[in-house]
């Protein structure tokens, strides 16, 4: 099953990358672009046949390794296969 863990900087935590991208885009003339935040996305193929169990495993993996909870939040989703 395909799953996605999206990891974003926590609100209020400085995101220098996002800020730099924002400035760069504005300088390139993309004036409509207002606020940029950069995060990570981790695509995981997981050997599990139901979302409930998969979510438990992925939450565990996120807490243990994937996300740094001091500065990041994460979100788990299961995109429909196409």
């Amino acid at each position, binding site marked *: 099953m395909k799953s996605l863990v999206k990891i974003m*900087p926590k609100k*209020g*935590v*400085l*995101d*220098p990358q996002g*800020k*730099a991208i924002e*400035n760069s885009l504005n300088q390139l003339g993309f004036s409509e672009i207002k606020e940029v935040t950069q995060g990570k996305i981790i695509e995981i193929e997981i050997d599990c046949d139901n979302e409930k169990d998969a979510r438990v495993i992925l939450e565990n993996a996120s807490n243990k390794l994937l996300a*740094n909870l*001091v*500065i990041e939040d994460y979100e788990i989703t299961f995109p429909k296969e196409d």
Partner: protein
Amino acid sequence: MTKITKELVEEHGINKEEYKFILESLNREPTITELGIFSAMWSEHCSYKSSKTWLRKLPTKNNKVIQGPGENAGVIDLGDGDAAVFKMESHNHPSFIEPYQGAATGVGGIMRDVFTMGARPVALLNSIRFGDVSHSKTKHLLNGVVSGIGGYGNCMGVPTVGGEVEFNSCYNDNILVNAMCVGVAKIDKIFYSKATGIGNSVVYVGSKTGRDGIHGATMASAEFDDDSDEKRPTVQVGDPFAEKLLLEACLELMKKDVIIAIQDMGAAGLTSSAVEMASKGNVGIDLNLDFVPCRETKMSAYEIMLSESQERMLMIIEPNKEQEAKAVFDKWGLDFATIGILTDTNHLVINHHNELKAEIKLDILESGAPSYDRPYKITKENEFDQSLAKETNDLALKTLENLLNSPNLCSRKWVWEQYDHMVMNDTVLRPGGDAAIVRVHGTNKGLAISADSTPRYCSADPIEGGRQVIAESWRNITSVGAMPIAITDCMNFGNPEKEDIMGQFAGVVTGMIEACEILDYPVVSGNVSLYNETNGKGINPTPAIGGVGLIDDLDHFSTPFIKRENDNIFLVGETNGYLGQSIYAKEILNITSGLPPRVDLKSEKEIGNVVRDLININKIDTVHDVSDGGFLVALAEMSISGNIGVKINLDKENLNDKFLFGEDQGRYIISVSDGLASEVTKILDDKGIFFQKIGKTGGKKLIINDHEEAAIETLKKIHENWFNNYLEE
């Protein structure tokens, strides 16, 4: 308005007497912003309330010192109008909570202390300590801290040229991350933090303010307990890119005659920079927080004053020069805001949203700050039982292998390869020597720099340990042929409210004072980090010493790498084979009790001076001091790094573990080319320096008395692979 309750006062780490003093001096209840300001300024971290009385006793002057403690960093004279500006600082607790960012912002912070004085940072060092290698958090913390240090320093383009790494279970829940920065400036272009000129503008430059590390300063002074995981404050995230811009912008502006005073916003952010600058200049300061560039909405005065957002500076400039200054910061894309004015009121006045948030007489904050003469008791271990040493039984090289493969003696290459140690192109001696050598750009002079501490000695005998750390730093600087000039220190200890911990502090300082005086090696800057304690268990007393010396002429310096075959190996200084607190005792005998080796400061000085002379008159170019692990470990390091073997021949009475692995102080191994051996012998004899001829270089093996041998290649692998093996496990 927030009501000031007893709990709130307590939460701010202000005790009853302190609060009483606040009430009396204000003649009213403080506002919450004021309470925050008092709390930050009177925290251990900013006020040094437990350590002040002891620190005052340290020697701080010699004929090279331009600026001692009290400024953002210390300054020494390098001749020809050049100065070195340096300091070391701790970022222990933040690094334990978030190792990458904690270490990174530690490096960022210490660099600001240096470039705020007008110096371009030219070298970084770090002294880092982790828990036992088997502790569950150690790998994660080690990886995070090392990549954080590299991440920040590499991006800044300042080489990280040295440091030290130690593992010990006493740091399991209190790792230490001490970062040191050395900068170079022209003596007549050094900037200070004393705010002067009533009516002058208070200008904020750099990154925007967010809710980062609010109460970081109070946190750094509070003992950890098991729920501190829950009480996490907003962590400071470093932006080395912003700092690089800030560095270039500040140095560019400093070339013009614009800045009257400048200070970085470090611990306790805007509060401490505003208060310290105004206090030094004996002026008042009015701030209007509406003008502070903020990253987040609805920040309160309390939050703005206490935020520890990184990459910010406070400057005093004349109002008519604001435009000129602003143009520079605009070019570098950094915020520039006039947020206040200097006054003649001697008060700190804070306005926000048309409301008076704080009004405090500055001398209440500064000189009214508490200072405690805490009770102390100095204790030490008993003499080590020398009879516990094993006979070598022809196993000396096996023991050597075990030691080279131990966490505290193996090569730190895995660490320093993650640091750009060559950028700026002036690194003459890279990590791996006794001290790093960094050329003063555009000259033929070199700075020798090293970071050292031996906490296990300090724990076993604080006074002796205090002497030893200074002596070891001096010896490392001497080993490369430099004249040691001055030090910065970072004093990491447990809870000073406990008599025995305060005794460790008092003892170590006492030993340091004696050694600094005899070696003419004063303290010009430093930092104290107390309460490094978890659940009542303190760390070993850890005074990290950052030493700086000068090589006048880079045509003569030395390194520990053996360079030629057929050189003569001399062991200079007396070897008694004392094993107390040695790595041998810990790793091989499993004994951690006993007194550490003694330092004889007078002979330390005599021997060191002769070794340095020999280097300077070009008689020797290969020197290594003998420290952790003793003689055989030091010799093996020389052999491994030079990739040339050594054959040693010991008298029977010296063929034992005591001689090979004892950690007697004040010793150097020198490798003398054959043609100069008699000359060097004569010089040493004439000066009455004790030394032993121990062997000859050559081949690819380390050979002891013809019956034990090990290939250099094998020793090298053992020495260099420990970190990789450990991390891959």
